[in-house]
């Protein structure tokens, strides 16, 4: 019988989107820019990837559509904003906890901040 965890591991795209939205509501372009900034330019998401993940996150209740309004830092067009939900915040926290646990294991095994024995 399959056991389903209440907070299963997140895909990298979902994780980055939740992380981007944890700082506040954002529209699609804003999410892309925030993901890029959070990952120091290492993760760039195309619209197909972003909205495919957003669709599943909306269905799963991790995020929700907010209102449609003008971004004061951009032009005067109204944009649809997305915001993280309680479930989304919980999933993000669980994922970060998993990462913290992995880092602590790596530290115990003296893998972190170094990488592998042959790098020493």
């Amino acid at each position: 019988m399959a056991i389903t965890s209440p907070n299963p591991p997140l895909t990298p795209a979902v994780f980055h989107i939740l992380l981007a939205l944890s700082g506040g509501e954002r529209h699609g372009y804003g999410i892309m820019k925030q993901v890029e900034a959070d990952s120091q330019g290492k993760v760039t998401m195309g619209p197909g990837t972003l909205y495919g993940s957003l669709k599943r996150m909306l269905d799963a209740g991790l995020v929700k559509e907010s209102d449609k309004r003008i971004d004061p830092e951009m032009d005067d067009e109204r944009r649809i904003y997305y915001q993280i939900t309680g479930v989304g915040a919980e999933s993000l926290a669980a994922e970060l906890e998993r990462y913290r646990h992995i880092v602590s294991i790596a530290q115990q095994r003296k893998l972190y901040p170094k990488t592998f024995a042959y790098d020493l």
Partner: protein
Amino acid sequence: MIYEQEIVQKLYRKLLTLYPQRFKEQLGESMEQTFDDLYKEQQTKPGWFRFILWVFIDTAVGIVREHVLSITEGEAMKNTLAYPRHAALISAIVLAVAFIVAPMIYLFGNLRDTFGPLAYDLADFLYGPVWAAGLVTMVFVLRERIGERAPRRMSLALLAAALAAGAMVAVACIRSANRHYHLIHPELHLEESATVLIVWTTLVAGVTGAGWHFLGWALVLIGSAGWTSRCLPRLLSGLYLVAGASALFVYRLPELEGNVVMLGMVISIWQGILLWKGKPEETQAPEINTSQLDQA
């Protein structure tokens, strides 16, 4: 530059129309806006073509992924056919014509005498690509209309229809290739070769039998889905079941082919009219607990 921007934006909007309907409704507007924002940002940077290529490829991959997910998740397909009613009516007419005209050409000599080899080419075209396209489109639209209440059966029906279509196209290709080879090489007198005739007849009959068999599964599954979900009139569901059961055994009892052709034509017309008039599920019976159907 503004002209270029308009063209690219128009193309991107066209591309977005290929997303499944539900996806488009939910996120299409936001995607358009995001693309416009990305485009404006990119105008100030080098590598314009690379950017366009990247966005279009990423979106195209997303479109394929969403369609695959909508199929594998058993979701009712509310997707690429912008006007399913038109598609349904056209496919129904095409299917009905292909069902009746092609066998008539094969069976009766009049048209053959009138048009010569052209008649056979027409028959192969009707009973191959035209029939296949009509069948797959019809089942596809039907799945969109009633798939929500019987997703697994309708998905299997679509798969069976695709296999039937493939087999019938293969038969048309074999027939056509064989005929042209005979015409090109009269000196070989292939029509007098018993081996050639046996191999050819067996091959054509075998693949045709497989086509009818898969068609049978498709019809039985649609009939069953229509019956239990009450999305189709009982009589039509019954016709689907009878036609399907007959088609399943055409490979063993070729004389059943005529019945299937007649029933297929009647079903195509009836189904086409129903789909054209629209909303079969709304004209039918009561609320059904969908969880008790295929979802179980």
